[in-house]
């Protein structure tokens, strides 16, 4: 399967991107464009797999049914630009440059730039184990980023875009304010620079993880059972986080992939079942407005919070 995806990325690069770069006089970016081609193909695969599984699931066991699902359309747009479009390109280029510059400066001093494999030499040569450890560490970092985004009012003003959706579906995972995404990127980059981040060594694993994140937002009555819900974040568990009473400061179930951190820091609630979602404090534009309307309403709210 990996070979098929890689072939598709190779075709995209050779048949479309390279001639385009050549025509635009930007051939110096051909290496970077191939990195983006891989991200785009795997992103498209993520969206397709998620679509193929979540759509039947949402039709089979929906939590809610809506006469008009127009509010979901904007989430589709968020997903496409986040997973296939410009964001992977920007983050790829920015992170790559930053990592090379900072770690290069460390190497200049004769030190070895930090990586998990350097910290635990036994990991060298065991890429799958190492990669899973990276995922655990990054998920832990994400838990705290997410939790803090509910603590600071100005930050929650941005994060409210994600919570305002009353028609939550698997598309809602990527419904984030651009500024919120940038803060998340800086947060993850800081962690990545501390422990190093392997490149796309295991794209299928990334695909599975991103699928789980989308699935946790699905409009589906789906639980992983008593044990399963304590191992991986389920739609039932994460829906509680999007509940009307969980918006803002007093929230719960912050975990994205692993519920372990919620259990450890006592923010887990396994009892709430398939609650209604949304943020009663958010203005209507955040819930049903266009992409631009959501972004501007959220920015205005952030400014109000900062100048209060």
């Amino acid at each position: 399967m990996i070979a098929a995806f890689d072939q598709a990325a190779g075709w995209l690069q050779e048949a479309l991107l390279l001639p385009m770069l050549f025509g635009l006089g930007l051939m110096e970016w051909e290496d970077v464009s191939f990195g983006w081609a891989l991200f785009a193909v795997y992103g498209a695969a993520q969206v397709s797999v998620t679509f193929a599984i979540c759509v039947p699931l949402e039709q089979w066991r929906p939590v809610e049914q809506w006469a008009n699902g127009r509010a979901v359309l904007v989430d589709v747009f968020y997903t496409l630009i986040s997973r296939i479009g410009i964001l992977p390109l920007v983050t790829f280029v920015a992170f790559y440059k930053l990592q090379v510059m900072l770690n290069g400066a460390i190497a200049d001093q004769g030190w070895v730039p930090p990586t998990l494999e350097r910290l635990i030499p036994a990991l060298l040569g065991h890429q799958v184990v190492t990669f899973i450890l990276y995922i655990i560490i990054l998920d832990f970092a994400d838990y705290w980023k997410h939790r803090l985004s509910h603590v600071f009012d100005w930050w929650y003003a941005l994060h409210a875009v994600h919570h305002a959706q009353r028609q939550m579906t698997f598309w809602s995972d990527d419904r984030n304010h651009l500024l919120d995404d940038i803060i998340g990127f800086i947060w993850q980059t800081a962690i990545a620079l501390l422990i190093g981040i392997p490149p796309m060594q295991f794209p299928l694993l990334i695909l599975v993880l991103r699928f789980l994140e989308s699935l946790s937002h699905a409009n589906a009555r789906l639980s992983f059972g008593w044990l399963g819900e304590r191992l991986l974040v389920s739609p039932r568990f994460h829906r509680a986080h999007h509940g009307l009473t969980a918006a803002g400061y007093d929230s719960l179930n912050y975990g994205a992939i692993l519920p372990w951190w919620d259990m450890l820091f006592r923010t887990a609630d396994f009892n709430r079942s398939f609650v209604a979602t949304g943020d009663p404090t958010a203005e209507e534009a955040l819930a049903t407005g266009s992409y631009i309307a959501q972004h501007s309403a959220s920015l205005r709210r952030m400014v109000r919070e900062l100048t209060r």
Partner: protein
Amino acid sequence: MRRLFLLLFSLALPAAAHAAGAVLVMNSGEASLSVIDMSTRQELRRIPVLREPHHTMLTPDRKELLVGDTVGNEVLVFDPNSFELKRRIPIADPYQIGFSPDAKYFVVNALARAQVDLYDPVTFKLIKRFPLKSMPSHMAFAPDSSAVFITLQGTAKLAAIDLKALTVRWIADTGPAPAGVLWNRGKLLVANMGSDDVWVLDPATGKTERKFRTGKGAHQLFPSPDGKLIYVNNRIESTAVVLDSTTLNQIRSYKLPGGPDDIEFAPDGKVWFTLRFVHKTAVLDPATGSIETISVGRSPHGIFLNSKATPK
């Protein structure tokens, strides 16, 4: 006697096949090196590395093989016969690496950091850094070690660094996105990836003397072992063009889909290519034009061939 000879010959065959050597391929897109058996054309194993291996170079005494891991910020030192990892050296962004012919300098093009670093080739201590905008890509040395010439992919320039005075001697214009650079019979050849041509420059002044077409996306230039031919890989046209190194006239052209990049020449006359976008290594028989491909890791870039290697 004839039967005995045939028996001995057939017994000797497997050993001969085993001694046919191995190839090491740098899979820049998935942090590994592929080891390929030259005789069976089978990938024997993958050696995990830290992040992003690109190019490789033998030490001047040919006893060690260096592999640059750019994002890992280290140079890996291998035994060129067994492909066993011997040690790791912290080096900032080692994209393209090379030793001056007099073995006085180890030169590192740090493409992402826009700098060229000169290191002591024994201690690997930094001697001098040349910030050069931007994207220092490939390098070629003057045979007398008086200078190293660096293509600056991001600014369409070629820089000449004086290795005696340790200064930048000149920076000259090239075509767009220059990549490969080669010293050929007292001249410099620069392949311009952003166009379809190779420029011929005077190494003393950097002045362009002539230009000739090879194909869209002219990327890298490789002299054949006997010095009579030059192979030019064209990225957009997906071709390898063979030039007469004296006249620079085109002799042949081979179609190589998949993003041809680095080349190694085998003693049997075959030419090994990395194909960046299809995750394969291609083996071209120049006599017949036939091409055989071997699957390797993602985005294979640098390649090292040792017909006497016995990898473990």
